[in-house]
Structures are given as C-alpha cells and as structure tokens.
C-alpha cells in the first residue's frame, strides 16, 4: 500500500462516514408511466415482454433505480434497495444510497458519503449490515435504523481491484457470512481491467488464504501509467510491475482475497472457510445452514486468458463445520483451476483471443470442487436466494440471478453474446436447473428492443414468502470497446404465484 495512504487509513479506519436519511425525488405513478420513460436507454418497461412459468405473474414495482446491487426486507415488509454508487464500470458515479419503501408505501432514502460504494445488504434486528467496496479494503458495517449509529465490523478484506464483496448474509446459526473476490481479474494484476484501479491502488495485489509456493510464471505487459510503453513484468500475488520468483513462498492470511468467511454478528471471531473463489458476489444459506456461493469464470482475453471456464455455484462445505473449528480453508481453484476441475493450461481452455494462461501455484492445495452447478461461460452469475415457503412453490430451491455477458469485451465467441440475462431455479441436491424468469427471447431488453428484463443482479423473497423480487441492474452495454452503464434504468420486478 502507498505509505501516505496507509498512514491516513490507519488514522481514519475506525471513524464512521456520513450516512443518514435524505429526501429524494420519489413519485407514485400508474403503470402507464412505464410506457414512456424519459431515459431513452430504457424508454419502456413492460412485463409482457418477459416470461415466467405458468401459474406466476410478473409486474414492475419500481423504476428509475441507479446501478443497484442488492435488496433486503425487514420482517414487517419494509423493502431496502441498495444503489451501488460507483459500480460496473466505476462511472457514472451516482449517489450511494438505500431506497427504503415502508409497508405503507412511503418511500425515502438512506444516503452514504463513501468512495466506491455498497454492494450487499442484509437486515437483522433493526440494523442494516452492508458490505462496501472502495479503497484498498472492503468493509462490512452496520447501520442502526433507529439511532443512525454506524459501526464498522470488518475493514481488512483486501481489495482495490477488480472483484466484489459477497454478502453479508446471516445463517440459521445467527452467524454472519461474507466474501471478497480476487483483486486481480485473471490471477495477475495486469492492464486489462479498468485502468482506474491501477491509478487509485497501484500496490494492490491478491493475497492467498494458505501458504503457497509460486511457479515464477510472470507476464509481460505495457505500463499504462508510464509515459513510454516499455514492458514490465508482473507475477501472481504481487503488485503490478513486481515479478515472482520460482519457488517463492507467499504466506497465507486469514484476511485474504478470493475468500469466504463467517463471524459473530459484531464482526469478531472471524473464521476463513474458503479461498480461491474468484468472485463470491452471490451468497445464500438454506434452512439447513448449507452455504452456496456464486462465482464468475476467468476471462478469455488479455495477458492471462482462459477459454470456456464455466460460471458456477459452489457449495462451501466448511460452513457446515462447527463455528471456530475450521483449521484449513478449502481452496476452490482461483487462479489456476477452472470450474470444470481442469487446469487453466489444459487444451480445452486455450484461448482464441489473448495469451494463454500458465499456472501460478506450484503444488496447489487440494481442489474443493466439483461445483454444485456449472453455467455457460460469461453468464455473470450474481446474487441468489433460497425459496423459504410453499406459498411461492419450489420451497428449498435456489433462485440465482445471471447479470449477463460482457462479450465481446471478455470473449470473442459469438455464442456468448446472449449468455445470462435471466433468473434460474436450481435444485441444489440434484444439480438440475431451469430458467425461471427470462425475456421472450435470449438477451437483454436493450438488444431485443423491447421493455423486458435487462440485467438481473439480485433477488429476495418477501417476508410472507409469496413473492420473489428481482432487482434488475438496468442497461449496461458493450459499445466502442468499452462498458457503458446507464443510471436511472434499474427496475424492481415482483413475481407472484397466482395458481
């Protein structure tokens, strides 16, 4: 970490940031208002353009949301929708806030002044637990809805790079579960993500969850922060421009990247359950206490490219062990093993775009796979929820959002262009899944030129168990070789069983 930043961080880390209720321009409107929205990126929202199984109905209940990431409910039915501030990509930078809709219909917002933005939210006993990305570390904080007090629970999860926090979620054991994705996109900090990461966090790097030995395979790249394009060499688990040595041992840390943890609700007694999970953005626990985590595939481009790595859902088996008893975290493969269990340099994973990846770890830990579910590459699996009630049907099944591909940015394969953009229903015991909420044709509404589903990012069941709420991130398109996300285009969909 840069020394000046480190000094300031140590001074500031315990201090709360500004957060509190704020008036925002909300309006109740009739459904006709959705036919002519002022956002030309998404001028129409129309449930008729979507598809759910027979016996269910879908309606849009909120529109104009900006870059949302998550939602949660209080037991009384109060709804909290999290707007991520700066998310994917980092701009536009919108207010980071929580839209609150009370059972009476009254709406207000809780706004926070924080670099980066919130990514996950959970309600528990009158407090909101929030994961926040920004700076060199991800934080977990809690906000008391009655007193307005903000408390930092966790502030040491290595970040400053590409991937996201996961959770927090609470299990039936009352413990808090959370995650943090990898700092690097592909196992090595290289100039293939948004360059702002390198400018903001020039010394960020991945941290292993166990002692590892490096192969010394390094990667040459240009330095986008230098005035002249001379090449620099970078190794895995190293800051940019720092090569690794063959046989070098990197000590494992409890607060690693690509990790999944649990702790008491006050953030104490943190226990590392797993690492090597590239992007554990979606986390869900069923009634039996089994923890499942969604994860995204390695990309097929750049200096360490990997082809056809499936998206996946992992069963984090260590979550079933007694609290405090996990001595060795399980390893789920990042940065060297694909979700199908094959190494990144296997012939089936040789890229047609980019430089083929080589292993970073010498004698890696045992792989904790296989995955509970494999999905098509670049589906961008996101947040998930277990169905808690027969009132909706499919009790115990896992409903998983698929944000949708970033192709052709991250793969040249044409078939990837329509992967994702839907919600699936998965039986975690059998591994069988089927589409539950989709458009009438594959792909996002903006490509289909209709009013349907865009990019599902999170889902939650209402406290009465009758409805599934699906949070739609809004329009994010790949154009001119970059990702453009449009604020005020997010939608909240409500799916209810009718028969």
């Amino acid at each position, binding site marked *: 970490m840069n020394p000046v930043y480190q000094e300031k961080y140590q001074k500031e880390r315990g201090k709360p940031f500004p957060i509190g209720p704020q008036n925002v*321009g*909300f*309006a109740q409107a009739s*459904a006709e208002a959705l036919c002519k929205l*002022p*956002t030309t990126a998404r001028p129409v929202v129309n449930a008729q353009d979507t598809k759910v199984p027979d016996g269910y*109905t879908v309606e849009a209940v909120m529109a104009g949301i900006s870059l949302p990431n998550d939602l949660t409910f209080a037991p009384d039915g109060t709804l909290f929708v999290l707007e991520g501030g700066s998310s994917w990509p980092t701009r536009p930078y919108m207010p980071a806030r929580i839209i609150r809709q009370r059972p009476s219909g009254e709406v207000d917002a809780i706004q926070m002044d924080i670099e980066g933005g919130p990514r996950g939210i959970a309600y528990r006993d009158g407090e909101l637990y929030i994961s926040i990305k920004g700076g060199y570390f991800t934080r977990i904080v809690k906000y008391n809805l009655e007193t307005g007090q903000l408390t930092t629970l966790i502030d040491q999860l290595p970040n400053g790079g590409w991937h996201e926090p996961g959770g927090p979620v609470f299990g039936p054991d009352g413990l808090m579960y959370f995650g943090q994705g990898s700092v690097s996109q592909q196992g090595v900090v290289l100039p293939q993500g948004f360059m702002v990461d390198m400018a903001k966090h020039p010394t960020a790097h991945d941290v292993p969850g166990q002692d590892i030995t490096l192969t010394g395979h390094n990667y040459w790249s240009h330095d986008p922060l230098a005035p002249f394009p001379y090449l620099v060499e970078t190794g895995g688990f190293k800051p940019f421009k720092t090569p690794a040595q063959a046989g070098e041992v990197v000590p494992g840390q409890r607060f690693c990247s690509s990790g999944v943890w649990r702790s008491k609700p006050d953030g104490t007694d943190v226990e590392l359950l797993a690492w090597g999970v590239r992007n554990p953005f979606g986390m869900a626990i069923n009634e039996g206490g089994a923890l499942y985590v969604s994860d995204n595939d390695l990309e097929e481009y750049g200096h360490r490219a990997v082809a056809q790595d499936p998206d996946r859902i992992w069963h984090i088996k260590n979550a079933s062990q007694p609290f405090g008893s996990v001595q060795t975290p399980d390893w789920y493969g990042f940065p060297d093993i694909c979700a199908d269990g094959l190494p990144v340099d296997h012939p089936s994973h040789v890229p047609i775009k980019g430089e083929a990846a080589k292993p970073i770890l010498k004698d890696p830990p045992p792989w904790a796979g296989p995955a509970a579910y494999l999905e098509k590459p670049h589906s961008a699996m996101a947040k998930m929820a277990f169905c808690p009630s027969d009132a909706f049907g499919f009790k115990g099944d896992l409903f998983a959002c698929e944000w949708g591909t970033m192709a052709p940015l991250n793969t040249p394969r044409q078939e990837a262009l329509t992967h994702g953009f839907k919600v699936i229903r998965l039986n975690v015991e059998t591994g069988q899944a089927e589409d539950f909420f989709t458009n009438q044709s594959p792909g996002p509404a903006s490509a289909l030129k209709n009013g349907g589903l865009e990019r599902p990012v999170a889902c939650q069941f209402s406290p009465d168990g009758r409805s599934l709420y699906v949070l739609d991130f809004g329009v994010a398109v790949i*154009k001119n070789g970059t990702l453009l*996300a449009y*604020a005020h285009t997010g939608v909240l969909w409500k799916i209810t069983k009718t028969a």
Partner: protein
Amino acid sequence: MTDSTQNPVVLVELDEANWNRFLDRAARWFDNLLVVQSSYRQLLEDTAGKIAEFHIRAYLQEMAEQAKAHEQQIDRLYHIIGRDPSTIRQGLGTLLGKADQVVGDLMAASSGLAGPWQDLHQLYLSCTNTLSAFGVAEQLGLALGLPEIIDITFPVQLDKGRDQRLLQEFALEMAGLSILYRQAF
C-alpha cells in the same frame, strides 16, 4: 404467465418536475462546455496563424477544422435534452473576450518569452480543459440514461485525446528551443 401491473409504480427521480430540474442543470454544464470549446477553437485558429513551421501549422489548422465541428455538436447536446443554446450563444463573444484576456495575462506573467511557444502551451492546457468538459457531459448522459449524448461525446473525446497528445508533444518538443534559445518557430 406475465401481466402488466395495475398497481402503482415507484418512480425514482423520473417524475417530470425532478427530471426537468436535472435537465436544466445539465444545460448549465453545456453552457460551460460551449464557452470552453469556443475559446479553444479560437485559440487554435489564432495560434496556427502565428506559427511559421509548416508541419505544426498544418496540424493546428486541421485541429481547428475539427474543433469547429465539435463546437457544432454541442448544439445537438442541447437539443437532446430539449433545451436551447441561443441565450449562451448570444453572450459568447463577450465571454470569449474575457477568456482571451486571461490567456494574455498568463503570457505576460511568464518570463517574457518571444514567439508562439506560450500560445502552444496554452493551447495544450485548453485542449485538456475541453477534453475534460466533454467527459463531464458524457457522465451526465450516463447518469440520465441518455445514450444519444454518449454517441456525440465519445467520438469527440477520442479525437481530443489524440489532439491532446499531439499538442503536448509539440509543446514539449519546442520548449527547449523557446526557453533556452529564445527562438521562434
């Protein structure tokens, strides 16, 4: 089965009053953008006329043509949000005169150098200013869910990114000649 809702929908900042407030504020930024871009275009034209070296002069003249086109694109930005640029255009002459004065003051304070190097250096800074101003306009388009704005600002920024590098290069190439040798070019 799908169905359109009959229940009320919550609109977040999309109601007419709120949206118009956003658009009015965006229009005020476009005013800034127009002033900055017009000032840059005028400085380009003036500086090109002061430079004797053929290659640099030709590059600047080409940039000036492009700057005119970029300036015209700003009118389209106003139209996208249903606003009229005529008021700010009427006051543009006065504003540009003030901008010139600022440039002149800066030059007077900087070492009494002869020749067009100071103009060139000022041009580099002015180009950076316009690049930033178009970048801000792009952020407003993204924030308001209006891709038509990005369709304009994105290619302009690509042009300006290249121009900025070129102007930086010329300003740095000619710095030694101008500052140490006090030579014009």
